């Protein structure tokens, strides 16, 4: 009697295993390769609009380059051990280059060192890493912190209290922006960072923090690490329609608010942090694989935009049809070649081989 139960148990396990494998292999057919280079992408944060746009820029630029056969994207929410496993998984798949947006400046270094040793070109995008023999393609995050702080100091008349809303503790971009920000603020004795918080680059959390912290007269300016428009929204309720200057990024809604609320006295300071830096990383990866000499650091140089000075440019950055947190810079001259439609299609070379030529 008991024996039959156990047999059933074992039989069930076998059947479910076979069933699982059959179903999945039936649904998924391997993609055809049509090109030369295989590019791997490791992204530590899925479900974030900025990161998704970055991945789309990599795919779109790879398709247009005509030199890439396949882009393998390992994009998921994971810790360093998980991302290291993803990097190793890309190595085992024989990719020629790995573009990595690392969740940690150093924790993936052992896996990255193994990739470099295997002759794979490693390009860090957006977040810098400390691993040697790798290439960085990123916004100049130190300058990002500095130019925003400079514009904010000016907008605040060089005095008052700042609400300092950082990104995620430990991320390379956050550390670099902090360096830039503090180097500027230290120059002005009458400017004080009276509250420092981490939003984790989470829109909801940023909005909640702004709603808790903002009070009339408490702060004279806000610096955000890109979680910008929820802060402006919080001001509308918490400060009863009065606005204090806010430093934000090129997020679609923030761009729109900077333009539309300018007449009501709102000073929005836009420091672009283009998500399509992914496209630039792809170009650098292809250049390296082509044997061209590439600088170890390829930095985009952000400039602070205000509606008083850059009205036309800011108006051109607003896309009414796009989401609130769409990163509205859609072209990086010298790096990217896609147009808006190609970026939005988000197709890798293996997705539609007929268009790669």
């Amino acid at each position, binding site marked *: *009697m*008991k*024996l039959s*139960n*156990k*047999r*059933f*148990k*074992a039989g*069930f*396990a*076998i059947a*479910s*295993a*076979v069933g*699982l*494998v059959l179903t*999945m*292999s039936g649904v*998924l057919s*391997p993609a055809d390769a049509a090109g030369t280079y295989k590019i791997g992408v490791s992204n530590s944060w*899925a*479900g974030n609009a900025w990161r998704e746009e970055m991945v789309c820029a990599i795919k779109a630029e790879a398709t247009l380059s005509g030199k890439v056969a396949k882009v*393998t*994207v*390992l*994009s*998921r*929410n*994971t*810790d*360093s*051990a998980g991302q*290291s*496993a*993803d990097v*190793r*998984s890309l*190595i*085992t*798949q*024989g990719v020629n280059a790995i573009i990595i947006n690392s969740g*940690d*400046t*150093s*924790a*993936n*270094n*052992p896996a990255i060192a*193994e990739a470099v*040793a295997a002759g794979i070109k490693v390009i860090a995008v957006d977040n810098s890493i400390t691993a040697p023999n790798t290439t960085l393609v990123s916004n100049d995050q130190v300058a990002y912190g500095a130019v925003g702080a400079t514009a904010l100091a000016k907008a605040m008349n060089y005095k008052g209290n700042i609400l300092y809303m950082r990104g995620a*503790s*430990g991320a390379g971009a956050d550390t670099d922006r902090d360096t830039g920000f503090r180097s500027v603020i230290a120059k002005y004795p009458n400017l004080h960072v009276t509250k420092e918080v981490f939003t984790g680059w989470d829109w909801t959390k940023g909005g909640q923090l702004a709603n808790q912290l903002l009070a009339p007269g408490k702060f004279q300016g806000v610096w955000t690490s890109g979680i910008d428009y929820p802060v402006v929204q919080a001001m509308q309720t918490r400060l009863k329609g009065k606005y204090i200057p806010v430093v934000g990024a090129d997020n679609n809604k923030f761009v729109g608010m900077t333009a539309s609320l300018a007449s009501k006295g709102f000073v929005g300071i836009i420091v672009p942090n283009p998500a399509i830096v992914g496209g630039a990383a792809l170009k650098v990866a292809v250049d390296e694989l082509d044997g061209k000499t590439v600088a170890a650091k390829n930095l985009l140089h952000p400039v602070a935009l205000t509606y008083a000075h850059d009205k036309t440019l800011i108006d051109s950055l607003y896309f009414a049809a796009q989401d609130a947190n769409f990163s509205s810079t859609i072209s990086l001259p010298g790096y990217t070649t896609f147009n808006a439609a190609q970026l939005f299609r988000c197709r*890798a070379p293996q997705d539609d081989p007929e268009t790669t030529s």
Partner: protein
Amino acid sequence: MNLIKIKRQSWNIGIVIIALGLGTWQINRLPVFGSYEVRTILLGILPIALLSMGQAIIIIGGGINLAIGAEAVLINCLAARFMANKSFGVAIVLTLALLFVSVCVGALTGLIISRSKIADIIVTLATSFILIGFAMYIQPSPGGGMNLTLAHLISGKGSAFLPPLIVLILPLLIIWIPLYRSRMGIAMFAIGSNKDAAFLSGVNVDLTRIKLYATGGLFAGISGIVLTAITLSGSPFASISNTATLNSVAGAVLGGVALSGGVGGLTGPALAALILYFIPTILLNYGIDPAYSQIITGALTIVVVLAGGLIRNRGKKK
């Protein structure tokens, strides 16, 4: 192996077959498969396999530890903070000291549960917050390091896959098998099956529980040390500990441990980690949204628990 032994191992055989199926699928996709690839898989499963084993011991004894991920994160942060730039000898001593700390943290958790009579799930939920708080105090932002010789001894180097394999199997051999065969092992299954009956039969329920939580803590400690060896740094994030804790429960359940207690072993959870590793890896490589791999892992867990429950209930009636 005779028929009775095969019967006893049927769950493990089932898990091995699923893992082999998924493994073959993954390996077929790779251009080459050698020792480096084996090491890649081992490093992918090691932290979660160890946590699942620790969780399994506690669940078999009728409890559950929602702080097991936090214990691992705490040890990870302690290790990264204090082992950076230390000699090999000092690192070894520190490793042993940290494993002792993890045993103490586990024992303390067990003691609180036994003395307070508050449900395991509540106490460990609370201790998970406390432990993460300590981790953030010790290592406010990611960083630190570990002696490279020790890191290579644990996680291997290049294509040396034996070190992580040893780290995976050794705890099974030197902790689980002696435990399983000892009086404490019998007490563990007894209190997991029926605490009152075990007490009436002369089992010291409280002491057994404390020992089980201590052993679970030891596994969490090993997992934390392994995390440090893999990443050469410590990350004090609650999100890591939460994910790790939930995966450890999934690993234990997939590995044939009944949440009602008193049933299961540690080989299953160790093997189940393979499944938890292969599903997302394979799906991600096909460009499928990571959310789907979570759905599939979740669905598989439910199916396994349902099937296991049905089989066990049938067994009880007869």
